[in-house]
């Protein structure tokens, strides 16, 4: 089957009536959770896993993908009208979006954000459509050494690009790698770190760990921060930008699309990071940077475009290499595994229905989001009135029952509680749980391919640098480690006068 036949066959999957329904539902759920502060795409996707377990694999991943990119749309609405970012990637939109709303330009801000999101998302899907098959073809020649270095690079980049402390991200990643070793060692058959507990012989369950860290942990964190504050939305008229608005923001949208796609493909290059990078870029290239913070439309258009482009681009490494680049992708990988589908370079040939069906469904999902985001603004604003005190116990019940549905184990429900407490304590003490989850997912790939590589090279570690692809990746790792150190030294020098 050639490239265009494959793309067309993907549309047949994506446009099947049941899948249209799942795209619609995924996008709608995503928008809703994007609006609700305190519940992000990771716990929502986790909560949906028990439902997707009952669906065919293509529909399951179409639904989960829709939730992710839908969340990027929803967060904007409350950022602009209420000064309440629904999720992390929309925090930056508050700066100029809320100022625009105060000046009576809320409609322009929401409209340009929807258009930018649509364009950014579509550019990224085109990148995914044309770029993913090329990457998958090249990845077919990857062996254990390449996977070792690739997974290591992924974890390192997630730690480096985190918005918090890099050192703490490295420690969290190391903890994830360690947790991945719990259970029976596949190579020598000895039990590791099980403490004699029979249920741990097969290792820690990914679903229980993720439900705990991101489901229960987020709820505990939200309970700690809860307020009985009521929000009043600023008024808005028609949600459509003027010609002048479009003229002013067109380059920001273009730059946001390219930047978002580029960062989204990289491990750790999340929607949050790309929206912040886009805002910084727009302020730097602007001829009138003083307008930023006072209602500059580019400050809304660029970041909103970039976070949608990044959300879609993150599917490139997942679908082609089987490497998740952020916590959401790790959970979607978990969803694929539950369905018995192993993403990687062979997915495009072995399961073209899933590969192309998911990609093509994104075109439809983006269009649906553009259509829904404009008339449903009023409804979404009302959703913020749902109190966290009511939402929290409902989410906890769904987390616990969802875990049981997947594993049929009360033991795993206790594991959820343990990791719920850990997730809360990590967030309180400045450790991002994302690198831990990602390292946990990549841990077994990394360890297995590392040990296979050592046997291939007869214990010679130089073998990693002697192969062209893994050698290049080792050089990239060196760059990832060295560049931030050099930048820090340069900054320290420029800050110290007379040095």
């Amino acid at each position, binding site marked *: 089957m050639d490239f265009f036949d494959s793309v067309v066959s993907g549309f047949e999957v994506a446009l099947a009536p049941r899948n249209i329904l799942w795209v619609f539902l995924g996008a709608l759920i995503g928008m809703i959770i994007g609006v609700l502060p305190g519940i992000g795409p990771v716990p929502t996707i986790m909560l949906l896993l*028990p*439902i997707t377990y*009952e669906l065919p694999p293509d529909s399951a991943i179409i639904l989960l993908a829709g939730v992710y990119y839908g969340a990027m749309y929803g967060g904007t609405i409350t950022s602009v009208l209420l000064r309440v*970012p629904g999720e992390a990637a929309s*925090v930056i939109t*508050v*700066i100029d979006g809320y100022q625009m709303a105060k000046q009576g330009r809320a409609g322009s801000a929401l409209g340009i954000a929807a258009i930018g999101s649509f364009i950014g998302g579509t550019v990224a899907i085109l990148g995914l459509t044309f770029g993913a098959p090329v990457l998958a073809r090249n990845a077919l020649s990857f062996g254990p050494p390449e996977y070792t270095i690739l997974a290591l690079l992924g974890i390192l980049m997630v730690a480096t*690009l985190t918005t918090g402390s890099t*050192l*703490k991200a*490295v*420690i969290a990643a*190391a*903890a994830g*790698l*360690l947790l991945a*070793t719990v259970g029976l*060692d596949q*190579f*020598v058959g*000895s039990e*590791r*770190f099980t403490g004699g507990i029979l249920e741990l012989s097969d290792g820690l369950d990914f679903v229980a760990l993720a439900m705990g860290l991101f489901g*229960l942990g987020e*709820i*505990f964190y939200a*309970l*700690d921060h809860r307020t009985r504050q009521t929000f009043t939305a600023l008024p808005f008229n028609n949600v459509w930008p003027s010609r002048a608005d479009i003229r002013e923001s067109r380059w920001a949208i273009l730059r946001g699309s390219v930047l978002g796609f580029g960062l989204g493909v990289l491990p750790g290059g999340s929607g949050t990071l790309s929206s*912040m990078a886009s*805002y*910084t870029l727009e302020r730097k290239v602007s001829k009138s940077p003083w307008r930023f*913070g006072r209602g500059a439309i580019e400050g809304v258009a660029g970041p909103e475009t970039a976070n949608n482009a990044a959300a879609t681009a993150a599917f490139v490494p997942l679908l082609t290499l089987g490497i998740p680049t952020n916590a959401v992708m790790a959970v979607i990988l978990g969803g694929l595994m539950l369905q018995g589908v192993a993403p990687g370079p062979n997915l495009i040939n072995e399961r073209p229905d899933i590969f192309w069906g998911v990609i093509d469904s994104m075109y439809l999902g983006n269009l649906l989001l553009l259509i829904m985001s404009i008339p449903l603004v009023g409804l979404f604003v009302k959703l913020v009135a749902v*109190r966290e*005190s*009511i939402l*929290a*116990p*409902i989410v*906890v*019940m*769904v987390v*616990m*029952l969802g875990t*049981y*549905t997947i594993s049929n184990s*009360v033991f795993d*429900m*206790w594991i959820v*509680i343990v990791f719920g*407490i850990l997730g809360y304590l990590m967030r*309180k*003490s*400045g450790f991002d749980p994302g690198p831990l989850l990602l390292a946990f997912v990549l841990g077994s790939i990394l*360890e297995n391919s590392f*040990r296979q590589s*050592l*046997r291939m090279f*007869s*214990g*010679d570690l130089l073998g990693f640098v002697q192969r062209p692809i893994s050698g290049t990746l080792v050089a990239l790792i060196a760059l990832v480690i060295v560049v931030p150190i050099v930048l820090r030294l340069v900054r320290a020098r420029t800050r110290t006068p007379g040095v």
Partner: protein
Amino acid sequence: MTDPGLEEQLRAITDEPPPASVPARLIAAAVPLLVGTAALVNSLLLGVGTLTDPGAGLWPAGASSLMIVGSVILIVNVRSVVDGERFSASGVRTIGLSLVFIAVFLMMFGGFGAWPGTGFEWATLVTLALWLKLIGRESWWMTAAVSVGVTVALHLLFIELLNAPIPHTIG
């Protein structure tokens, strides 16, 4: 990727609480050090083998060493890495209470000792009612409506629609 001025604006938007005190930050850095050290000792006991024939403990020894090195650097720089959040008495009390309710749910759901448990409907109903009334401080009317409504909805979703193998008393 972002400049310091922008970071300050973002902190104001997200309404961040005051950072954790130095002793709290020290404890946060010492915990991974202790965990890493315990894991390293266990890894060495498992046997690291050789590079040509790696043992079960080689990889966990590497991961725990990374954890130890990271924690030591963090402890050395504990005064300059200013992050984390202060714990509040009310926050700890709320989370403690919610943990008690989740434990009650699990014991009612899965049973305790020789008692087989009630299945998920009663467990859900009781936990929701306790949580909404004592943590959420909702009115009796709201507590009853949400507890019953959500229990019915979850029964319909998990038992009737998904046919999930969850212990249940109704249907």
